């Protein structure tokens, strides 16, 4: 049996939006401790690792571990109908296998949507030793990505422990952004050794855009020519972490 209630529908909606930037169908694992989802996008370039502890909900009942697979865009359509102050109740109808969403506001609405066949394979997280760790405001990071997106479709991120630079080189234009220690956007920076790596903006911009609704602070961890880990600090008990594979151009 699975039943939850959350009074802030926006929280749930933003989290699902953030997940749906990478995948169309998500398999959530529901356990007595909370909800989690870990999945890679169809191209296997990026991964989302999402958890929401039971304390994040107003009511949480789950007596055993089950997997629920849902079409995220359909789910979002329904969640978008919830108003600002409306509470959302979600439960799994075990007889029909349907997902039941109830919104209580001025009147009571109940939506039903089918669950899909859950994928059985567990996705492990990438095993990487990170040499650099940079904490930024999500907004500052998003702005810098918008800047570099003007000239190129990938960005090179570099840090030596003192500052963080983002460079992009297009066919005819270039962009260079420096975030120094002590600037408003850069909260902290540390590096065991100078690290630089290039990432595709098509993924990075989409991820940051979607996740910025849920979080004000993001921690980046990366090493030279290795995947990057983006940890968006959530306001509730839970995590929203992305991994993104680098682009290695042999010139």
């Amino acid at each position, binding site marked *: 049996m699975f039943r939850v209630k959350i009074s802030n529908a926006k929280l749930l909606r933003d989290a699902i939006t953030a997940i749906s930037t990478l995948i169309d169908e998500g398999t959530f694992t529901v356990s007595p401790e909370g909800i989690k989802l870990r999945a890679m996008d169809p191209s296997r370039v990026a991964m989302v690792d999402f958890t929401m502890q039971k304390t994040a909900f107003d009511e949480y009942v789950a007596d055993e571990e089950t997997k629920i697979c849902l079409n995220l865009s359909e789910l979002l359509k329904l969640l978008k109908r919830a108003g600002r102050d409306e509470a959302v109740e979600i439960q799994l109808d075990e007889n029909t296998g349907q997902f039941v969403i109830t919104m209580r506001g001025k009147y009571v609405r109940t939506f039903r949507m089918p669950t899909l066949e859950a994928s059985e394979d567990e996705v*492990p997280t990438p095993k990487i030793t990170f040499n650099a760790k940079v904490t930024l405001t999500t907004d500052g990071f998003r702005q810098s990505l918008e800047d570099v997106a003007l000239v190129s479709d990938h960005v090179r991120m570099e840090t030596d422990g003192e500052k963080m630079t983002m460079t992009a080189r297009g066919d005819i234009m270039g962009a260079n952004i420096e975030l120094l220690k002590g600037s408003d956007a850069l909260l902290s920076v540390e590096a065991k050794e100078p690290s630089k790596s290039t990432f595709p903006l*098509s993924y990075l911009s989409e991820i940051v855009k979607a996740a910025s609704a849920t979080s004000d602070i993001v921690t980046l961890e990366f090493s030279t020519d290795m995947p990057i880990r983006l940890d968006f600090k959530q306001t509730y008990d839970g995590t929203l972490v992305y991994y993104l*594979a*680098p682009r290695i151009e042999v010139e």
Partner: protein
Amino acid sequence: MKASLRKRFVKKVKRRVPWVGHIVNDEKIAGDLNVPSHNVRIQAWEGSICLTCRGSRMLCGKPVCPAIVKLYSFIKTKKAADSNQMYGSSPPGIFVGRIGYPYVYAGPLVPPVLGDTSILDAPEQWLGKTFDEIIRFRTSLVRGKFRVNVKKPFQNRRFQEKTLEVALSKAPVYTEVAFKKKPSDKFFFDGTVQPMGPSAMLRKMNVGNFKTDSRIEKAYADGDLKAESAVLDLYLNGVPVSGIQRAFSVGAFGLKNERRMVPTRWSITAVDSTISRSLIENEVKGKPTINEYRVYEYSYLGNRFMVLLTPSSWKYEWIEAWYPGTVWNPAARDIAMGGDWEGYRGRTTYASIGGCYYAVRLAAAEFLAKERRQAGVIAMREIHPSFITPLGVWINRECVREAFRKDGERFDNLTDAMTHIGSRFALGLKHWVASSVLLKDALYQERLTKYL
């Protein structure tokens, strides 16, 4: 303006340049081109190199003069249709123009011959034909026109109903047309326009007995069936794309009150795009990916098509390379390249390169759907100067379909597959990589699977 000045000006314009017969030095061409002036009026764009060249100096760099090839068949058709009325078996074919939209010229295409003319408007059967033949197919159709508001075709019911009958016919249909004036005798001496037959405004039109294609008729009769579903149903029932497109263009599909005529050029892309999108969503995505790299190839009329399939989720790219001396790249010394692409989630804007993008996407989606597999598709086309004149997007669709009908080469890794492509194309591999998003992605973008 003073009277005297105006007079002198008029005189200047009237001076005729007896250019064709007198100036062309190649005797054969000169003889062929020396047509009686009342039959065909030859015009060229001001400043065009065709004026200097006149089909004999090969200034555009093509091995054959495209304008002359077109002129030959134009003269032939014109001779046969040099009157105020004509009859023939429509293949069946119709044409809806796009100029002046939503007030366009539409009407039937009628050749001046009777019999089985079905090949004249069925690009699916054209593959393997020569330039001369295809240009003849195109120019031998005389186009009757009437003006119509695409959203209110019933306002011109007299011609609209007849045109609709022609479009729904299963086999060539006897068609009688009377024109307000003789079909135009104007011929543009130019290599870049698609070959087209003469045209004239309709005065009267009659259609003989015909049988409709029951599948198309059913979609036509159903006023609650959306155009998109109609197109898909017909495609899945085996109606050729050109048949669907013809009925789509004449406004035979859609909700009863929403039906409208669609310019032929737009309808081709609309049908290609609708069918391929649905195939991709329903038949390709979610299927297992192929296990190796594959390369398919087909060459035709100075075009070399190469398609690379990569073992990944669905994505698609189309790149064209125009050699100097070809239609869209006449003057430059460099090779012009253009292309567009989409990722797994498709695209929301119209592909910058145009309708060929969607025509090839259909060929690729169709192949993967049949194989029940998913793959990344990078389709490339190299166009050499011997491709003398554009023929329409069908050539892309049919050539890529043909490439997929042959056994492709299989490779274990991307490097070998790319080397093979490089060895088949005249243009260096690095140019293809530089102008491709997906090739760069396949070469440089790492996957997380490597780190798990």
